[in-house]
């Protein structure tokens, strides 16, 4: 089983040199810490910044420079600032190469639910619906099951949808899986100490299991 950092580390391996990436709040934000040094990427913040740098020092903290999670940040050399309309023009126009975000549920045809739980206070979708409707390449970071052991990789999402058929790849605490273009979860890798049977038991949606399912390496 992976912890949150493990999930972030595994996702970091998917990142290609020269990419522009939007990282959601939570585990996705952690991914930035594990991108190999030889790889150069530019992080996009939907509130209007390309080139998110590390958290600032105490002296550098600037209330006018935050990320989409409202955390104070710094800027990398070569960064650019812009409006929210321009930011979502970038996103909607397909200029961001990779979007990494969290999920509550994913269905076997790639539907994503991550914004609303009926009966609970609705905080809003923020930029998630724009991101998932627009990005060509979406990787989801999530727990494979709920605390009570119910699968979150489903035939059909039970929660309100954020976007249809948008997820390409999923990294959970148990496995790495692709969504097949024809539907279904294609199992690619097992987390250390997790068996194929564990994954089968934890996956409600249609799971394609190849003969050989390697353990993740980092």
């Amino acid at each position, binding site marked *: 089983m992976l912890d949150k950092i493990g999930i972030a580390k595994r996702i970091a391996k998917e990142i290609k040199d020269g990419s522009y990436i939007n990282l959601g709040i939570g585990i996705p934000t952690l991914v930035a810490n594990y991108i190999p040094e030889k790889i150069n990427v530019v992080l996009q*913040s*939907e*509130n*209007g*910044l390309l080139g998110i740098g*590390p*958290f*600032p*020092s*105490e002296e550098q*903290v*600037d*209330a*006018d*420079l*935050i*990320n*989409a*999670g*409202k*955390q*104070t*940040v710094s800027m990398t050399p070569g960064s650019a*600032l*812009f*409006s*929210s*309309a321009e*930011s*979502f*023009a970038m*996103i*909607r126009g397909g200029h961001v190469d990779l979007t990494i975000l969290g999920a509550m549920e994913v269905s076997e045809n790639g*539907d994503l639910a991550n914004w*609303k739980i009926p009966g609970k*206070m*609705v*905080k*809003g*979708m*923020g*930029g*998630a*619906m*724009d991101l998932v*409707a*627009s990005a060509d390449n979406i990787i989801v970071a999530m727990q494979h099951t709920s605390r009570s052991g119910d699968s979150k990789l489903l035939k059909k999402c039970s929660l*309100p*949808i*954020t*976007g*249809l058929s948008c997820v390409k790849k999923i990294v959970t605490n148990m496995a790495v899986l692709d969504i097949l273009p024809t539907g279904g979860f294609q199992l690619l890798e097992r987390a250390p100490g997790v068996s194929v049977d564990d994954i089968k038991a934890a996956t409600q949606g249609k799971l394609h299991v190849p003969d050989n399912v390697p353990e993740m390496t980092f």
Partner: protein
Amino acid sequence: MIDKVVDNAATAIKDIHENAVLMLGGFGLCGIPENSIQALLKQGTKGLTCISNNAGVDDFGIGLLLKTRQVKKMISSYVGENAEFERQLLAGELEVDLLPQGTLAERIRAGGAGIPAFYTPAGYGTEVAEGKETREFNGKMHLLESWLLADYSLVKAWKGDTEGNLIYKGTARNFNPMMAAAGKITIAEVEELVPAGELDPNTIHTPGIYVQRIFQGKAYEKRIEQRTVSSPS
């Protein structure tokens, strides 16, 4: 010469009437029109519809106007940091329209730009699509979304000049430029107000044509929601 410069926030917002539709710039508490919000609080105008990406926190930003029950309706993309907001919403005292953030930004941009409607893929197949026209373009489904306009837009900039030209700083730009263009009356508060000609025309974010009133703000608190720092390594 008609002078856009007004003395202070109270004068600038004086004619904002009950049930007015307002746009308020900012993302979280970053780049919000602090002075205009304080003046509205003092003036006590009620029944406001506030179009703003967020709803502030309990004791700052739009949260202040929620507490005094001056807000009838919020149009936002994310409203999660506010307990009083939650109470009013659950009690049915507050109307809330939640929109995808990019759709919100683009609808406001469309309002300023005279585009009554446009198609976006965001929200297709979700609750957001309910009651909306859909249409396929290039094999992908889209929603028809309409412009948003406001009676008054309240924006905050870093520098401004007497012609109403504005320059924002850092990520405090966010929704401010589109809102400046989408308000029938746009009221800009700035940290530094300079005479016309002092700002480099090539670096202006909001051309003065969009701004009807401008004043030099004061006592900016610029509260930080998540103060995250690197420990020296």
